[in-house]
């Protein structure tokens, strides 16, 4: 069973719909025992960093998530803000993140002649894979595209945690993976067949390490 962690910050509904389409059993829950019993977790997220981390704290789910992800190594996929929450901190806010991945969340840094580039980075874009990972199985072809909507991006302190980069003004990290912890900056639930494939990969292949 896949559990989409509900902390009142995200479009959990559309993620659940995607799981229905690919025929995977999933629920949206903020229940401790549901999370304890989950095979895999999705950490969704839309909105501001501090709000996200505060809601997560207030929901009281951090201890059980830590037990599940850090101790029992259950695979988790952070989506958009959900991926940013996995990092140590963000330029968007002043609270500390979960810090499960040695990375920080920063603003886009454009040079002067890129000033016309809009923030948020919104729309379809491609990803450039840095290494092989099951998450992108069957997504190696050039036409794979994903839907982005974000103003901040993740900067990894460890090069080897980077799974893919995407170009917008400059190359930024569009997905990460460290052991059982995955994160994607784009929204697979809005990325049609490519997103479906990615979620399928996460469900079928990502294993408890």
């Amino acid at each position, binding site marked *: 069973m896949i559990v989409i962690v509900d902390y009142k910050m995200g479009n959990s509904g559309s993620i659940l719909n995607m799981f229905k389409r690919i025929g995977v059993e999933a629920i949206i829950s903020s229940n401790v025992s549901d999370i304890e019993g989950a095979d895999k977790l999705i950490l969704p997220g839309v909105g501001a960093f501090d709000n996200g981390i505060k809601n997560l704290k207030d929901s009281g789910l951090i201890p059980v998530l830590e037990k599940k992800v850090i101790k029992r190594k259950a695979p988790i996929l952070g989506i958009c803000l959900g991926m940013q929450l996995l990092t140590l*901190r963000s330029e968007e806010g002043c609270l500390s993140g979960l*810090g499960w991945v*040695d990375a920080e969340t*920063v603003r886009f*840094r454009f040079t002067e002649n890129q000033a016309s580039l809009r923030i948020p980075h919104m729309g379809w874009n491609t990803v450039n894979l840095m290494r092989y990972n099951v998450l992108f199985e069957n997504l190696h072809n050039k036409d794979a595209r994903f839907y982005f909507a974000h103003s901040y991006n993740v900067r990894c*302190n460890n090069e080897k945690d980077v799974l893919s980069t995407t170009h917008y003004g400059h190359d930024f990290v569009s997905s990460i993976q460290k052991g059982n912890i995955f994160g994607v900056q784009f929204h697979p639930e809005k990325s049609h067949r490519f997103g479906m494939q990615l979620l399928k990969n996460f469900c079928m292949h990502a294993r408890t390490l």
Partner: protein
Amino acid sequence: MFCSRCILDSRIPGITFDENGVCNYCKIHDEMCKEYPTGEKGQKILTKIAENIKRGGRKSKYDCVIGVSGGCDSSYLLYLARKLGLRPLAVHFDNTWNSTIAVENIHTMLKKLDIELYTYVIDNEEFNDLSRAFLSASVPEIDAPTDIALTTILYLAAEKHKIKYILNAHTFRTEGISPIGWWYFDGKYVQSIHRQLGKRPMKTFPNLWLRQWLKWLILNRIKRIRPLYYVDYRKEETKRFLTENFGWRWYGGHHMENKFTFFNHNYILPKKFDIDLRLVEFSALVRSGQMAKREALEKISKPMPIEENLVNEVKKRLHFTDEEFNSVLSLPKKTAKNYETYRPTFKRMRSFFWLMYKLDLVPKSFFIKYTR
């Protein structure tokens, strides 16, 4: 914005970032690394410095003065001076807030290294009155009286024993470079705050008057040197080394050998001025590869420890009622700019101090921070 190399961010005064997101304090660090090399090159320079010190002190009982606090850096400097074959005089300013471990550390180190100690003890009511004045002045430099007094007595000791060199244990590689604009202090600043808010006369406090200082610089030519700049100084290894070889003890945190400094760093600065000194220290350790960025960020996210007992001790010794103390804490923040200082004078004398820096008579950081 966050610096892509250290853990400083855009809340730090005077910070700028280059196109790679690296901050100017990292740049200063790199420049200083070039100016003050370690390894073989550093060893050569250090040997040269030691030769000069020995030559300068041929006729005196001591050839250099070292200020000691019982902390890690100054304890190591004592050892290094001995290793270089120097004959230092240790000088300690007792502001009456020493931790027990600090005092023990000083004595253990000096005994094993066979170094004499000169201690200057200030009248405790006078120091408490001065500290109370600084707290009431609502400025972040409440440790300034201690720093100023230590500097003065180092010069006094040097003058008395005809010593030409003061060795300072500062290390930019582990202590860092404090941001321009976080603080400022000089003798006139102490005087103006004391005049406005002090209640007791200044009798035993050794203030650093400009005229006297200039005399020490120009006539006595007393140089201030920072030998640890030339050593590949690693904090954790040094602590272990001192413990194993000298029975030195760690007191739990940077600058925590003194209770009043501890109170300032862990209570006043973060609570009232939103200044977390660990940012500077950890950034330095990250830059010099002694701490992982991740570890630094994790440590900094935890609040600094402070014991209620210590806060109460400060209140009691400084004769603050709870009410007075709280009203002092909630006073609008002020800086050195609100009080009289030597700064305008230092600015006028900028070219003179540049020369002093080039002649090793004042540290470079003094020239950079105090004369513009």
